[in-house]
């Protein structure tokens, strides 16, 4: 008798849900062992995490704030992954987008610029800067065949150091690694801004960035599902040679895809600054661009799936506040992630227990 792992030919519709649910159960049980071992009642701990991440009146807002950059960058990553273009440099594109946003808000437009114009220019700048940073690995890939995994990742470090140069150098406010705050005209509207009229909204910091996320998701959904370009993406991803024979322009598509992918990541940086941080600073992103890769993957590159997964991830990050020291929630988050990703295997492969073939048959073959 032996265990055999073989690919599933068709995946039942319930399977992805079942595997994620099963993974969560396993992860929570493993986490519970650790918590109980540390002297904390796991039920209380999980209840608190669930409460703070998802159930309190303010949870939706707090979680949305964390989810917004994940969703935008996740959508960006998904566009590239859809055509098997492994752009793992979303973090760098996000930093560049944020840099350009800060430039507009603080230096290139006067603070008295009317809010709609200010935000529109910031949006454009964030998208374009991210797009340029995404286009570099795109062009290198299309024209020279440079591996985009390496080039996009390496450019991330360049982008982070570029950002650091500005926050400590030309744009520094006093040597702390941050700029002065944006003028109010460069802030996204937030729920709390209406707190004077509607007291229930006070202290809710969810901002307009999520609207960008939803619009981007809907647009991508339509493109993927109905447009010719969406179809080309999929064909190029599945079989580049077939695509070329069919007359599709690979180079142009690679560059275009990287431009849109980087642009969306840049928009994530723009929205984080305009909505939440309100200044450029060192390490303003705790790795949103990297987490976005996981979000995109678990969302199965489906724009609506990415919104759901991004929201759940945001909640998990917010829920981490309730257990101290900080390593414990990180560990639980890690276990959940590990289990969910591992469980993904079960949706692609099936495990069969095969009885050993009859000895006589083997002998006959010999």
């Amino acid at each position: 008798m032996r265990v055999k792992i073989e690919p599933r030919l068709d995946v039942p519709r319930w399977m992805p849900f079942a595997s994620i649910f099963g993974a969560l159960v396993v992860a929570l049980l493993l986490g519970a062992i650790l918590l109980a071992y540390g002297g904390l009642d796991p039920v209380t701990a999980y209840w608190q995490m669930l409460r703070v991440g998802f159930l309190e009146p303010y949870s939706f807002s707090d979680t949305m704030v964390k989810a917004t950059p994940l969703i935008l960058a996740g959508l960006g990553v998904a566009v590239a992954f859809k055509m098997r273009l492994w752009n793992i440099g979303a973090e760098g594109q996000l930093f560049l987008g944020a840099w350009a946003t800060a430039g507009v808000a603080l230096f290139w437009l006067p603070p008295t610029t009317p809010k709609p114009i200010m935000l529109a220019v910031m949006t454009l700048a964030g998208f374009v800067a991210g797009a340029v940073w995404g286009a570099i690995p795109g062009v290198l890939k299309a024209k020279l065949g440079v591996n985009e995994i390496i080039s996009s990742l390496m450019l991330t470090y360049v982008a982070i150091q570029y950002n650091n140069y500005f926050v400590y150098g030309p744009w520094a406010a006093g040597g702390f690694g941050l700029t002065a705050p944006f003028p109010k005209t460069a802030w996204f509207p937030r729920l709390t801004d209406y707190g004077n009229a509607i007291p229930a909204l006070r202290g809710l910091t969810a901002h307009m960035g999520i609207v960008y996320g939803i619009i981007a998701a809907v647009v991508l959904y339509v493109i993927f599902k109905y447009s010719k370009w969406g179809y080309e993406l999929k064909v190029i991803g599945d079989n580049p040679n077939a695509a070329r024979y069919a007359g599709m322009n690979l180079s142009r598509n690679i560059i275009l895809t990287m431009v849109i992918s980087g642009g969306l990541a840049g928009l994530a940086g723009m929205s984080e600054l305009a909505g939440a941080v309100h200044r450029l600073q060192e390490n303003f992103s705790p790795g949103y661009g990297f987490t976005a890769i996981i979000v995109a993957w678990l969302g199965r590159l489906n724009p609506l799936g990415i919104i759901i997964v991004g929201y759940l991830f945001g909640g998990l990050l917010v829920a981490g506040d309730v257990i101290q020291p900080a390593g414990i929630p990180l560990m639980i988050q890690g276990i959940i992630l590990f289990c969910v990703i591992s469980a993904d295997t079960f949706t692609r492969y099936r495990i069969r227990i095969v009885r050993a073939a009859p000895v006589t048959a083997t002998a006959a073959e010999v």
Partner: protein
Amino acid sequence: MKKVVSVLSIITLLALILTLAPANVLAQDEVTCESDVVVQADDWLSKIADKFFGDVLTFPAIFEATNAKAAADDSYATIADANLIEPGWKLCIPTAEYAQVILGVGVEAPTSAESIQIPTIVEGMTNVAFVYVGHIGDGGWTYAHNEGRRYLEANLENVNTAYLESVPEGADAERVIRNLARQGFDVIFTTSFGYMDPTGVVAEEFPDTAFVHISGQKKNATNFGNVFGAMEEMKYMAGMVAGAKAAEDGSNRVGIIAPFPIAEVIRLSNAAALGMRRTCPDCVMDIRWIFTWFDPVKEREAAESMLDAGATVIITGADTPGPVQAAGERGFTGLAYDSSNACLGLEAVCLGVPYWNWGPIYADIVNGVRDGTWVPEDYYGSTADGLLGFYGFMECQEPYPSVPASVIPEMQDVLGQMQAGTFNRFTMFTGPINDNQGNEVIPAGVSLSQSDLEGLSEGYMSAFSIEGREPCTICMGYLVEGFDSTAEIPPLN
């Protein structure tokens, strides 16, 4: 293959759980060795300590345990000097409990039972929350604040405290602070510069909660104040002992590690240079900017770079004692920072530690909030207020053995003047003082103002919307005479 991976991961997880296991046997008089280890080439005690206990500072436990064991069993080595161990020696790695007994409260065991907690309020008590930028086991800045929190627990009746550590500055901090206020904490201390704006925003929303920010300049009239202190006084002491030691070494060269080009760091570095020149008029100070508060590798590299350049005493302005260790490995000495036990395990090569003593001021504020007498202010404590200390010279402390005996009386004298308030930051920064290019920056007879010391330039005040303070006229943006003439502050803007 997949299966192997998952089996491995389960084993890893089990191993993880097992390593977290608190051994339940308490150390009695007899030493129990958890394991034995034979010294290899390139080993040193703190490295072995780090390997077994995850903390370089736990090496005195191995030192003590091995010597205790050697008394009964001569297969174990007798260690005369903690800095000198030979390949082939057999050492005793004691149990974690024994280590804790030896090290007193020094060992933070973040995974031990009582330390995993959910920050919540307790009805009927005064609930106090702390927001930390680093890890409570950093042995430096955050560790010192956490000691202040523990002081509250130990000294005040009816107080419940909680903390959140490693909270990123910016939007995350605002969420964390707001949720603490929502939960109903009565007093919230936020202990990093980058929490200034978030604390101010949340303070407006929760007028019944008291907010205290550490190291900034913002406040409001009702429920938001700030606290900081004249660490420059203790850095002056550090400079005095460093100068005396460098003179004794014959190098006449001291190195200082500067985290960020901000007024606070420049002020503290200048104070150290002034102190150094007091005991060693020929000494020169070298400086390295590392752009981080906490990075063991960078801190060490900065120390080594200055040792290479001829310095024999290293003063660090960052969080870890690594620079002291680096100096010690070359037979030189150094000064750590932030918390009174920062030189634990490095006693032989440490000259002292300028440290923060947050407990009493925290207790005053919490008591004031309870009585309704607390009024938000720009509180800037000094040695006279008990907020600061210099390890080795305060009550019930002995100077470390490497401190030159000749300088001890003068330092005690200066400390006495600081405690009496007759020598303070203003007398320290009284002209004539030149910069390291020979240009006069503080004219004779002129003392810096508080705004000058804090470097409150108009640009800084407008960038951070600081209100209600006078701008500086002689702003803290120069290195004083005593610094190497090539030393400079990294240019901003």
